[in-house]
């Protein structure tokens, strides 16, 4: 898919909780085609220590309004600078990058998002629904204040929630949720995005039941377009770039994921 460098303007910047912001950005030119799971490399202007672009999942695309949404968790200088952008501010973005989730039709799918990992699952869930899938979405967080956008996700999915402190939904890690307690998991595919530990645990369950598990990985990136080879992950075929061969991988391709599963790793918020 052809990649573009485009200028966007902030339309709205909504603080979702203490460290998450939802940005809506309008493109100066018509938006190119994008598929769920792809990401964008965002230039953070005026940030002294963020020379390189920052990668973010494409959270939502609204072709009618010619906007995209990014869900930003503030973890360092770059994300903090994005979180304070005001309506009208300009942002330079490269997109769409990476491979995205393969399209599935007429299945029964489970989406599992931990913390900010729900970001790519909106665009995905919406598309899966359109393609005739029955969509269940499990959102995990440390506590109720870390569970974001559950109402919005219920537009296209049956939403399940688990929190580690039990302040919302079921208590415990996402992998302890009752949805996984069913003898034969009724899902054709599981899509997962969140901390590595969580994704490993979910893929472990999926693999045991023979269900394909698609995970969206993160990695430190310099270029986002396969030019620097900085973002590799160890796969059964050797080092692969998360930015071009991923970010979405079938968990089976990943080296060490089946064996060293750390079940129930906590979600850092």
């Amino acid at each position: 898919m052809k990649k573009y460098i485009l200028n966007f303007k902030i339309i709205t910047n909504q603080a979702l909780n203490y460290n998450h912001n939802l940005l809506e950005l309008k493109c100066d030119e018509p938006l190119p085609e994008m598929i769920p799971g792809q990401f964008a490399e965002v230039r953070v202007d005026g940030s002294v220590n963020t020379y390189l672009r920052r990668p973010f999942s494409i959270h939502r695309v609204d072709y009618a309004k010619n906007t995209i949404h990014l869900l930003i968790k503030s973890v360092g200088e770059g994300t903090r600078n994005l979180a304070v952008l005001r309506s009208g501010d300009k942002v330079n973005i490269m997109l769409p990058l990476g491979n995205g989730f393969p399209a599935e039709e007429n299945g029964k799918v489970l989406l599992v998002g931990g913390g900010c990992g729900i970001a790519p699952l909106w665009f995905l869930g919406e598309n899966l629904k359109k393609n005739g899938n029955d969509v269940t979405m499990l959102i995990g967080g440390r506590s109720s204040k870390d569970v974001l956008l559950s109402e919005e996700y219920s537009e296209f999915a049956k939403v399940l929630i688990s929190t580690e402190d039990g302040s919302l939904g079921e208590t415990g890690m996402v992998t302890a949720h009752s949805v996984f307690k069913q003898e034969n998991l009724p899902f054709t595919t599981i899509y997962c995005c969140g901390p590595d530990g969580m994704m490993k645990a979910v893929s472990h369950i999926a693999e045991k039941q023979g269900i394909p598990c698609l995970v969206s990985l993160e990695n430190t990136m310099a270029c986002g377009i396969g030019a620097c080879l900085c973002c590799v992950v160890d796969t059964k075929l050797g080092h692969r770039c998360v930015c071009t061969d991923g970010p979405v991988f079938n968990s089976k391709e990943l080296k060490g994921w089946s064996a060293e599963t750390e079940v129930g790793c906590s979600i850092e918020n």
Partner: protein
Amino acid sequence: MTDLSVNVHKLNLKNPVLTASGTFGYGEEFDDFIDVNALGGIIVKATTSKHREGNPYPRMAETPMGMLNAVGLQNKGIDYFVDKIYPKLLKYSNCIIANVSDSTVEGYVEVAEKMNRLDHISAIELNISCPNVKEGGMAFGTSCPSAIAVTRAVREVYDKTLIVKLSPNVTSIIEIAQAVEAAGADAVSLINTLLGMAIDAEKRKPVLSTITGGLSGPAIKPVALRMVWQVAKAVKIPVIGIGGITTATDAIEFLLAGASAIQVGTANFVDPQATVKIISGIEDYLQRHGISDVKQLIGGLIV
């Protein structure tokens, strides 16, 4: 008409802007963003005699106005290059330069020999300065005898333009430059990355899997500029300037310091269109200053 063309030994480049090895893939990664043929040339990523998986991740750490990398020469080896990559490079009509690396002199020679047979590869850049491999790499570029040994050996098997890429991690880059000049290099390019390190204070661990890595980007520009200036005065062969070049002004500074051409590295990551912007920026500068030929800038520093 402004003349942007420059010569580096037998290479006639339509403009002085090249891409630094390891930062521009095999060119095609940038096809969506720019007309790659508009560049003076491209230096593709390192090729070694054997397939290499490179270093484990994490391989990258951001630093103030720069970055550390520890890629470690990941590539599929020269035979794969000849079979699978070279044919794809034929679509480019500008100057294609291969970056040749290895851990042993024999390995360098093998790659150079095979590159020599590829018509569309106009030159090789001998990377004796990679800080990210355990054996060889930078070790060759930090002492005169080993720099001479590898240059000489490759010179014997390579007929076309031989560029040797120097390491900045030395007491006197002048000595190394003069040594490889004497050993038969047709040009030198500098600088490769400075050896650096990043630590995650919270985790109390190195950020990179290899602990140390190569520092690149604007942060190193002052060091690169100094070295280019020193070397350009000390050797007769052309010098290609590399290090932190992000804007046309940066490029012009390197030309003034004595570089006949320049390479854009890390800046490609931040702005994949950096190279073409630099070319048009150089043209603007020449017009603004009433200079008709970019070659007049080379070594034109008034001291």
